[in-house]
């Protein structure tokens, strides 16, 4: 397939009466890295969670790899997917959380092999071999058997990235992956993400790391009050923001 990896058409999300996303349009091409920036509460996390159906959208349409997320279209009707089908869709979408969310009762290796073995039902030995390579790739081959509580924040987040990659996703979502980290640990996580981008992984990254966005992103989207106000290559958006609100936001963070 050659269409975009993610296509959002007027995506809306309401929590009760509170409209958090009011028509988000966004296209992410294959091997593209899109960074989403914007003030707190603007709906960045919510939009990211809609992409892998952790939140159900209340309006608009959302496609990943050409397939509607969470719905099946027959004629001009949308049928809600069953839990099994939603779970199957998520296999191709990796997600990395601000709070890491590693499984504390499993070792680093245990965290990485869990889903490939239990969900993809791949042979154990093969999964272990591949997972060790992944952990090695994020620079933690010596901490394979450590439990999350024995790892630093940066190490935990790198394990979390390896855990998501073990499912061989087509798309990776990052929700402020470095915001919970001590400043000196941010770099090691960004390095891993930079390598991943260089290998051609499609990524949507919510971040406050403007340096990373400037260097790695092909597009930066500025989100405010549930809408993408403007979007463009980082160089242009950072140098010459068009909107008043993006200008004030950027003047504070740059």
């Amino acid at each position, binding site marked *: 397939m050659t269409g975009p990896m993610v296509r959002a058409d007027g995506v809306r999300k309401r929590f009760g009466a509170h409209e958090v996303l009011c028509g988000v349009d966004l296209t992410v091409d294959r091997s593209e890295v899109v960074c989403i920036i914007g003030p707190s509460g603007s709906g960045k996390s919510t939009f990211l969670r809609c992409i892998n159906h952790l939140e159900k959208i209340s309006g608009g349409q959302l496609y990943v790899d050409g397939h509607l997320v969470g719905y099946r279209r027959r004629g001009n009707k949308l049928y809600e997917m069953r839990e099994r089908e939603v*779970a199957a869709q*998520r296999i191709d979408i990796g997600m990395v959380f601000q709070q890491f969310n590693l499984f504390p009762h499993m070792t680093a290796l245990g965290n990485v092999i869990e889903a490939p073995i*239990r*969900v993809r039902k791949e042979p154990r030995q093969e999964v272990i071999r591949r997972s060790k390579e992944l952990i090695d790739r994020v620079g933690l081959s010596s901490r394979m058997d450590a439990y999350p509580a024995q790892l630093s924040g940066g190490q935990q987040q790198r394990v979390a990235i390896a855990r998501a990659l073990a499912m061989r996703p087509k798309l990776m979502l990052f929700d402020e992956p470095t915001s919970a980290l001590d400043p000196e640990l941010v770099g090691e996580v960004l390095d891993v993400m930079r390598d991943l981008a260089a290998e051609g992984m499609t990524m949507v990254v919510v971040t406050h790391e403007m340096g990373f966005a400037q260097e790695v992103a092909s597009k930066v989207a500025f989100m405010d009050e549930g809408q993408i106000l403007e979007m463009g290559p980082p160089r242009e958006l950072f140098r010459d923001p068009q909107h008043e609100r993006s200008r004030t936001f950027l003047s504070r963070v740059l």
Partner: protein
Amino acid sequence: MEEKHTVLPASAGRTSGEDGPDSEDLVVVPIRHYGRWIASAIVLLFLASLVHSIANNPNFLWPVFFEYLFSEVMIDGLELTVLLTVVAMIVGISGGIVLAVARLSANPVVSGLTAGYLWFFRGTPILVQLIFWYNLAALFPVISIGIPFTGPTFFEGSANDLITPFTAAVLGLGLNEAAYMAEIVRAGILSVGTGQDEAARALGMRRLLAMRRIILPQALRVIIPPTGNETIGMLKMTSLVSVIALSELLYSAQTVYSRTFETIPLLMVACFWYLVLTSGLTFAQSVIERRLGRSTAAASARPNWLPGWRRQK
């Protein structure tokens, strides 16, 4: 010398009157709690006289106590008590897990029915439930399993054959326990952060797989200590099934003393065995809790929790 007023020279007698003894000779004398000693002595004296009077009171019939302590009838009762406790707790814990998961279900019928179950079983006395199960045959003479109203039956049997005193006891104790365990398991599940469930779902896990592999193992930390209490409670609760003529420990004692009228010594035998069993369970519980406590203490200095029984490889 002023600031060393609790420190006396080792050989106070010999050096009396001398100031500034060698510091190596100093001995620390702790405060003497004379009041405590006196109070303890009085209490121990009372206790000793109580034990003495019980031990020498012919009305306690100590020879009878020792005669029945290891008698076959009491040991059989003991075995049945242990068996009932184990089986009822297995029913209670597995039922509790199912009920807790059902209680948290998104399906309103499922969670509503579960709430109704808890309401009924926690709201009626266990003694009444036991008698009810025992008399089930009077209400439903024939028990059949099949498709309701129309379909074929897969299984049919007389309730009198199916509901023996033992099955009635297991049903009564187990189903009641399940209601209590459900609340304990639910609290455990809710103690695990939502981030864990989201991480599991983001990896493509389905609800039940995430529950089994991710949520429940972490919930154990909260579930295990009260489950120990429940088990000790169950051990004593099994004595209630004496009302449906099941010869567990208490009923065994009753059958003997209804014949010999040696009520007190036989009740003492039963109490002795209950105490032995609860002591064993209490010890096991404290060992498990110490392990859990160690892991939570270690984790409190760190951001995440690490279960102790996994840490020692």
